[in-house]
């Protein structure tokens, strides 16, 4: 038999005496026979929530600070949108220029391409914040969000990978990376055929953001990171920071 509990909001309203009489009686009778809801109620009582309570105001926080923060965030969003728009126009102009150049060039040799199938790795890394279309990637309905689970030694690490096979993009954000003077964080890309490619991570104020684009993204099987001697290693040697399995569709 399915046992349904009362919503937490309703339990809090019951405690604050904000429920209409009928609902109040329903909640009271449920509480009498449901240990789990009783515990939740006790927890709320335990932190001192009650109907006629007087709480101390937060010592430093001020509404104007929150207002200013909201304004600053709006500003940043506007700037990002502007940059994206400008980037789009510049990109289009460059594309037209290259197309014209190609038309006017003699057509007697193979076209140079970064996507040549004989190249071992076909991806590009973008690390500059302004060049990464974060919101476009994150809000794309085809983008998968994969939380990063840190290893036991890096518990304060928090991060996410956004993966989109359609646009061939992988965005990764990390925060809580402790700085080490004699070591660098190195990212390891493990391909479906178990090839491994290392890339140094640029860390600023404990955070790193990296966008990888290109054909190869679809062939990434795992992403992991480790601490390596300055300048990086050819293969992983240092303690592992995290490891993430990328599940492609």
């Amino acid at each position, binding site marked *: 038999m399915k046992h349904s509990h009362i*919503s*937490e*909001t*309703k339990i*809090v*309203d019951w405690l*604050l005496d*904000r429920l209409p009489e009928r609902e109040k009686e329903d909640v009271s009778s449920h509480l009498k026979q449901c240990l789990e809801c009783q*515990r*939740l109620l*006790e*927890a*709320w*009582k*335990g*932190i*001192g*929530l009650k109907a006629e*309570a*007087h*709480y*101390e*105001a*937060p*010592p*430093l*926080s001020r*509404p104007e*600070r*929150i*207002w200013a*923060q*909201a304004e600053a*965030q709006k500003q940043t969003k506007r700037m990002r949108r502007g940059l994206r728009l400008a980037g789009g126009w510049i990109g289009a102009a460059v594309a037209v220029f290259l197309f014209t150049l190609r038309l006017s060039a003699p057509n007697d040799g193979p076209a140079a391409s970064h996507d040549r199938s004989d190249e071992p790795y076909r991806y590009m890394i973008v690390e500059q914040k302004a060049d990464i279309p974060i919101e476009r990637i994150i809000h794309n309905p085809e983008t998968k969000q994969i939380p990063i*689970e*840190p290893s*036991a*030694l890096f*518990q*304060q690490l*928090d991060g996410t990978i956004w993966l989109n096979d359609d646009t061939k993009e992988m965005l990764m954000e990390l925060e*809580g990376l*402790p700085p*080490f*003077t*004699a*070591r660098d964080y190195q990212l390891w890309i493990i391909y479906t055929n178990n090839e491994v490619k290392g890339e140094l991570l640029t860390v600023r104020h404990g955070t790193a953001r990296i966008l990888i684009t290109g054909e190869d993204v679809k062939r990434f099987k795992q992403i992991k990171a480790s*601490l390596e001697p300055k300048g990086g290693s050819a293969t992983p040697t240092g*303690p592992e920071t995290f490891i993430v399995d990328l599940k492609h569709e």
Partner: protein
Amino acid sequence: MEDRREDLELLEKIAEGSRTAFDRFYEKYAPMVYHIALRIVGDEAEAEDVSQDVFLEILQKPHQFDPKRGSVQAFLAVKTKSRSLDRLRKKRDLLVNRLEEAALKENGAEFYFLRQLEQQVLIDALTHLPEEQRQAIIHFYFHGETQREIAAAMNKPLGSVKSLIRYGLRNLRKQKELFRWMEAGRGEKQHEA
């Protein structure tokens, strides 16, 4: 009823961009929000940050509130609890501090919320602990057993169980020292047994 109507009106005006409405809303609920955050995270500066996040969210998404689900006050209380737990998830030092405080109390009702954290958050952190310490912590925090019940199940005196929990938490705290050791490139971490 009057109060409920006022809250709805304030949220409507906040959605329209009214600074006065936001100030009034803040004045009305900031003390409660801060109180809940402080009781859960146990640190004034962090509680300030949580309060700020909660009100920032209200300012940016005032239509999140659904009057069918309950009062604005209850909505804020539950949201504050949720944001406070998020903060504990992100800041492991803070979490270990709270767990230590909980370990010293036989029945701290307010620590019930800590059990709502994803078990994985703690299980990951527990993997390197000696077996008995890990077991004591799992029974205490995840199964909600009292220290007396754990003592009976583990066939140990109550004092030993309290020590196991405390040592376990202290070992968790030592994980911070591991970073210093790696930086200096020396030493090996030892657990207290």
